[in-house]
């Protein structure tokens, strides 16, 4: 029997794209579909997905869980668990429409939840950690249930299929958000498990990634010491956890995170002025297990912004561009041009150079 994500490591190539309106204008998911569609050949129909930020303004204080169920028994079991740990404000099937390219869909449900304060207090964890541990617990222990989105005012939509078909399946033109990231997957083999598609998300963090990191098992075995379980064995999963750990738990800034996961070479570090050199040496040394090597280009989505990052040798293509308040990131320039003909300042960031685009003052006022 073919093994699915989590039972085996499946190498993939990919297409990624993403954009953000820094003024906080809400952009239709239709643009995200348009952008990824032109990179059709970078996917092979075995996975596609989207992450939209600012799409649930009406529930922006609740955690939005998107869950795949392979069976109604699984749904019952997990919903009982959710009941015990959360106050479920709203639940519904995620609206979809029939698309002939998308088949074998699981049960896809959405929950807007508040953690039960008493349970949070009893766990001695902060609220986010409590939520994260619940999500990880479900994904590890609940057979046939998989939480694939768990942030606030954001949502991940993914499936087996080409990403443009996945977008139509989820009717994303009906959603609007200040930022979107999209992923088209080219795995070398997969039985077609929906959970294995990307983006991968935990709380507000989502990752779309093109690459196959060579450091995977080193990173996995390291991050698993800190309460994470890499159940999918995907790069995206481990990168998400690492970023979650460094940003949420260790309070590193995004650019510091870039200096850890795509650290400069020692020779580069030696050339920096002494104070900077010491700082970079320190980060590399202490977080050695989180250095990611091998090819990757990622777009990290988080509350209020996007970060693009390439591996330090830049072994995967990635370009960025902008127009007015819009900031675009994509595997190929065509994906930007597809939605913004006259995008400006298109450039390829250097390996290891973190490119960050965030909501400005106005955008934050509008969206956060």
């Amino acid at each position, binding site marked *: 029997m073919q093994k699915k994500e989590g039972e085996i*490591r499946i*190498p*993939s*190539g990919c297409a990624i794209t993403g954009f953000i309106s820094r003024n906080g204008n809400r952009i239709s998911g239709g643009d995200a579909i348009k952008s990824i569609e032109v990179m059709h050949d970078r996917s092979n129909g075995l996975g596609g997905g989207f992450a939209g930020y600012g799409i649930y303004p009406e529930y922006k204080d609740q955690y939005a869980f998107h869950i795949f169920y392979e069976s109604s028994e699984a749904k019952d079991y997990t919903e009982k668990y959710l009941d015990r740990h959360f106050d479920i404000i709203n639940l519904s099937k995620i609206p979809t429409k029939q698309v002939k390219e998308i088949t074998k869909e699981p049960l896809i449900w959405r929950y807007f939840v508040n953690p039960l304060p008493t349970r949070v207090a009893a766990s001695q964890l902060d609220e986010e950690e409590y939520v994260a541990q619940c999500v990880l617990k479900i994904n590890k222990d609940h057979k046939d249930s998989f939480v694939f989105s768990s942030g606030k005012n954001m949502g991940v939509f993914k499936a087996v299929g080409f990403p443009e078909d996945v977008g139509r399946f989820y009717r994303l033109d009906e959603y609007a958000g200040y930022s979107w990231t999209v992923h088209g997957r080219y795995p*070398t083999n997969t039985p077609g498990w929906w959970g294995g598609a990307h983006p991968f998300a935990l709380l507000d963090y989502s990752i779309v990634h093109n*690459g*196959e*990191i*060579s*450091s*995977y*098992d*080193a*990173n996995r*075995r*390291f991050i*698993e*010491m*800190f309460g994470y379980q890499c159940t999918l064995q995907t790069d995206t999963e481990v990168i998400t956890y690492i970023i979650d750990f460094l940003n949420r738990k*260790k*309070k*590193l800034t995004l650019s*510091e995170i870039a200096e850890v996961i795509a*650290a400069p*070479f*020692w*020779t580069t570090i030696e050339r920096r002025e002494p104070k900077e050199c*010491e*700082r970079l*040496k*320190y*980060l*590399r*040394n*202490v*977080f*050695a*297990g989180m*250095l*990611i*090597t*091998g*090819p990757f280009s990622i777009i990290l989505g988080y509350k209020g912004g996007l970060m693009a990052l390439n591996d*330090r*040798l830049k*072994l995967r293509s990635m370009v960025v561009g902008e127009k007015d308040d819009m900031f675009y990131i994509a595997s190929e320039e065509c994906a930007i041009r597809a939605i913004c003909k006259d995008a400006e300042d298109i450039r390829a960031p250097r390996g290891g150079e973190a490119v960050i685009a965030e909501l400005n003052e106005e955008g934050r006022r509008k969206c956060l």
Partner: protein
Amino acid sequence: MSVNYIPAVFEVLRDTDRCIKCRACERQCANEVHYFDEDFDKMQVIEAQCVDCQRCVTICPTSALKIRKNQNEFREGANYPQKLIIENYLQAQTGAVLLSSMGNPVDLPVYWDKILINASQVTNPSIDPLREPMETKVYLGKKSLDIKRGDDGEIIPDTEYPQLELDVPIMFSAMSYGSISYNAHESLARAATQLGTFYNTGEGGLHKDFYKYGPNTIVQVASGRFGVSKQYLDQGAAIEIKMGQGAKPGIGGHLPGKKVNADVSQTRMIPMGTDAISPAPHHDIYSIEDLRQLIFSLKEATEYKKPVMVKIAAVHNVAAIASGIARSGADILVLDGFRGGTGAAPTRIRDNVGIPIELALAAVDQRLRDEHIRNEVSVVVAGSVRSSADCVKAFALGADACYIGTAALLAIGCHLCRSCHGAKCNWGIATQRADLVRRLNPDFAYKRLVNLVHAWDHEIKEMMGGMGINSIESLKGNRLMLRGVGLNDRELEILGIKHAGE
């Protein structure tokens, strides 16, 4: 009595057509195997004294010599091989414990050779180390992930615990002055300095001449405490507490008085000519909490500026012991496998006690991760790391760095005759006889050590590049890069790797 006759282990074959009777073999054989026979006007041999060190073979200007196993054979039998029979004869004759040296030569599984390394194809590019940076620098020491920031919000780059910076992930393992010669120590010290790595004094103290190599020296504190003083501790970049040795777990050491010459005596701080006995245990460490006290005593003595390493032999419950050590304040844990070398050990112990380093490393690394304390301690492996491939496999299993001992000695001329305990090393390594020590020229030897490590480092980089990895951090513990061949499920499970083809 004729039953006392022990057949020579080796035959010395001399091609008299080639021999020019230069007598270099005679002059260079400390075992006095060769002699010139005036009556017959030719070179003769006393084969029984030959240990197959190959010295005469290598220097013979006409390649007239060959050493081979004695063709005289006892009747075959797998249960009682000839070697065992002879050992019983010897013991019947002497009543003594059998002594051996260097690593366990018994045909037990070498797991390194049953592990294969991955390489990138198509989905992930391999990296050419000649074109792209390829990094093998390693920092050893306890890592605190507690980020401290100043008032300006900037990170304060304070590792909290002392770190050892290795430009190459290979160090020279502990070999004491006494067990090896002054020139051997000088070679190791100079090579470590040039390579930006470390050598280890072993338990015999540190000769004052070598204080200048202190920044690249690990000073060892063993059960005999030979040569240990405040000054000694202050010299080293790190301090290693030797709890055990892979070649002889559970027993101490014994440097015979004849090896304790003036220099050794001064360095070890013991009277000249007296036997230097290292007790089996440290008599101030009868349990793990005692170890903690010694660790912190040493840290106090050196103002918490130097990492303290604890070296243990790989034994059955090594993972649990390692966990205990990681929680006892040690900065670096050294695991020494059962094939590790020694200057002298009882044969039966060398050949039968301890476990393979590969399994020990895999178990320890996994246990420390399971207990979320892998970051508390760096793990260095020793005990027969024989090549760059062994190193790569060790790193992928989870080691932070490797110690090489036997390989280092090979680089400086050792021919692995495993006769160190005889103290007549024809290569000037495992001896204190001035005329023999002189045969090891540190000017050559240190360069050969540097060459060896550079070569390995290149190969490590090549293999890393093949895997698409360009920094050694990304190899560490990356067990997906390994596959086993011919291993059973239990072995694979302990090693934490899949079988080839999976």
